[in-house]
C-alpha cells in the first residue's frame, strides 16, 4: 500500500519536473527570440547616439558617449523633413482615397448578394499578390508621357495598385464580422439600404475603417520600388528612398542613416504598439479561412 502511494508520488514529482523543464525551455527560447527581435532596434538607437569615429572601433554593447549630432545633422544639413513630408502626403492621400472608394465596395461584398461576388473577391486577392515589378515599365512610360514622373500624383496613382485591393480585402473581412441584426431590424422597420448603411453600419464600422486605414498607410509608408522608380531627386523622394540613397562625401554616414532609421521607424512602431490587437485582427480576418 505504502509502496503504491510512494510510486504515485514519485510519478507525480517526475511529471511536475517534466512540465517545469518544458516551461523553462519555453521561456528560454522565447527570451532568445525576443532578444533577436529587439537587438537591431537597440543597436540602431545606441549607434545613432554614438560619434561616427567610434562606430566600428571595438564596439561595446553599452553606449560610451552619447551625442545628438546625427539627429541635428539629419534635420539641419540634410533636410530630412522633405522626405517625411513627401511620405505623409503620398501615403495619407492614397489611404484616404482608398478608404472612400473601398468602403462602398467592401459594403457591397460583405452585405449584398449578387452574382459574380466570389469572382470579384478572387480577382482582388489575385491583384494583391501580383508582383509590383511586372507593371513598373508601363507605369513609367505612362507617367512619363503624362509628365507625372517626380510628382505626388505620379506616386499616388501607382500606390493605388496595391493599396486599393488591400483596403477592399481587409475591410470586407472586417465588415463581415459585424453582426447584421441591427441592419435587418432597420430593414423590417422600413429603412432603405442607404439609411441602414449610413445610419447603422457606418458608425459600427469606424473601428474597421481605422484598422484598415492604418494597415494601408503602413504599406504606403514602407513602399520602395515604385518610389525609387518614379522619383528623380530629393524633392519628391519618400522616406525609404531617401534613407536607402543616403550618401556621405567620403564614406557611408552610418550615424545619420541610423538616426534616420530611428525617425522613420518611430511613428510606425508607435502605431503598432497602440493598435496591435486590431492590426492582428485586420491582418488575419481575410487571410485564414481554409
Amino acid at each position, binding site marked *: 500500500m505504502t509502496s503504491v502511494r510512494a510510486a504515485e508520488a514519485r510519478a507525480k514529482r517526475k511529471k511536475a519536473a517534466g512540465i517545469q523543464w518544458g516551461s523553462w525551455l519555453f521561456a528560454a527560447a522565447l527570451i532568445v527570440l525576443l532578444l533577436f527581435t529587439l537587438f537591431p532596434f537597440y543597436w540602431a538607437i545606441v549607434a545613432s547616439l554614438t560619434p561616427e569615429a567610434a562606430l566600428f572601433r571595438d564596439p561595446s554593447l553599452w553606449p560610451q558617449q552619447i551625442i545628438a549630432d546625427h539627429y541635428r545633422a539629419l534635420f539641419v544639413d540634410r533636410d530630412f523633413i522633405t522626405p517625411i513630408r513627401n511620405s505623409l502626403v503620398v501615403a495619407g492621400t492614397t489611404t484616404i482615397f482608398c478608404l472612400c472608394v473601398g468602403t462602398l*465596395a467592401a459594403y457591397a461584398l460583405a452585405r449584398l448578394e449578387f452574382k459574380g461576388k466570389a469572382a470579384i473577391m478572387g*480577382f482582388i486577392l489575385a491583384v494583391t499578390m501580383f508582383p509590383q515589378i511586372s507593371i513598373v515599365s508601363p507605369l513609367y512610360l505612362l507617367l512619363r508621357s503624362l509628365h507625372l514622373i517626380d510628382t505626388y500624383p505620379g506616386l499616388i496613382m501607382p500606390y493605388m495598385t496595391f493599396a*486599393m485591393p488591400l483596403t477592399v480585402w481587409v475591410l470586407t473581412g472586417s465588415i463581415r464580422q459585424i453582426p447584421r441584426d441591427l441592419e435587418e431590424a432597420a430593414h423590417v422597420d422600413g429603412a432603405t439600404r442607404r439609411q441602414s448603411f449610413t445610419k447603422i453600419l457606418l458608425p459600427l464600422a469606424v473601428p474597421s475603417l481605422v484598422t484598415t486605414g492604418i494597415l494601408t498607410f503602413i504599406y504606403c509608408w514602407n513602399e520602395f520600388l515604385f518610389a525609387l522608380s518614379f522619383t528623380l531627386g530629393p524633392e519628391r523622394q519618400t522616406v525609404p528612398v531617401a534613407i*536607402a540613397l543616403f550618401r556621405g562625401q567620403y564614406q557611408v554616414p552610418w550615424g545619420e542613416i541610423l538616426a534616420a532609421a530611428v525617425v522613420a521607424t518611430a511613428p510606425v512602431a508607435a502605431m503598432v504598439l497602440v493598435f496591435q490587437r486590431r492590426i492582428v485582427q485586420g491582418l488575419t480576418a481575410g*487571410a*485564414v479561412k481554409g
Partner: protein
Amino acid sequence: MRKISRLGYEARLGWALVGPALSVIALIAIFPLGWTVWESLHLHELRMPWLGQPFIGLANYVEIAKDPRFWAALAHTAFFTVVSISLELVIGLFLALAMNRVFRGRGFVRAAVLVPWAIPTVVAALLWRFIFESQGGIANALLVDAHILKQPLVWFIQTSTAWVPVILADVWKTTPFVALLLLAGLQNIDLSLYEAAAVDGANAWWQLRHITLPLLKPAILVTLIFRTLDGFRVFDLIYVLTGGGPGTSTEPVALYTFNALLQNLRFGYGSALSVVIFAITFGLALIYVRGLGVRLGGEEA
C-alpha cells in the same frame, strides 16, 4: 416575382458600389499588365530613340532563355525563398504556439514581434547591414568574443557569407507575420481534442504531431502561398543589403529586371523579364491553389 426584382436591385446596387474600386484596379493594374506584354514583344531602348519601337515577336523571350544572368537570378531567388521560408515556418510555428499559451507578458511579446513586420523593409535591411558592416562591426565583435569566429569576416565580399545577413534580415522581419497567420489557425482548433488526448495519456509531442499540425495544414498552406509569392518578388531587402553583389551573385529576378528597365533603359527586354516573373508567380499560385487544395477567403466557409 418580388423576390426576383429585389435580387435584381441588389445585383445592380452591388455592381454600382464595387464599380469604382474595380475600375481603379483595372485602370492602373490590369491595363498596365497588358501593356507590359505588348512592350515585351517590341524592341524598345529608351537610350536609342532612333531605333523606334519595332515589333520583334518573341525575340526578347528567346534572349531571356539564353541569358545566363537571368537563370542565375532565378536560382538566387529560389534559394532565398526556400531557405528563408523554411526558417520562418519553423520559428513562426514555435512563436505561434507560444503566443497561443497564456502567460504573463503575452501582450508585450505580441507587440514586440509585430514591430519588425511593420517597419519599412529598407530600414530593416539597413539595420542588419550595419550589424554586419565592416570588420569592426558588432556581429564580428560578438562572434569573435563567443569564439565562433577566429577572426572578423568581411561579410559582403563573399557570396556565401553575404547571404547570411540577407536571410537573417528576412527571417527577422517576416517571421512575426507567419506566426500571426499560424496563430489565427491555431485559435480555430477545438480545445476539447487536446483534453481528450490528454485523458488518453498522449504527450505534448504526440498532440503536436497528430492534432495541431494536421488541423493547422490549411493555415500553413495559406502562409506558404503568401510567403512564396513575397519571396519571388524580393527587391528592397537585397537592393539595400548587398545591391545584388558581390558582382551579381545575390541578385534576384526583380532586381535584375529593375536594372534592365531603369539602369539600362531596355524597356522591351525588361518588360519581357517582368512578364516572365508574373508568369512564374501566377504559376506558383495556381499550383498551390489547385494542387494542394487551398481555398482562400471569398465566400464564407
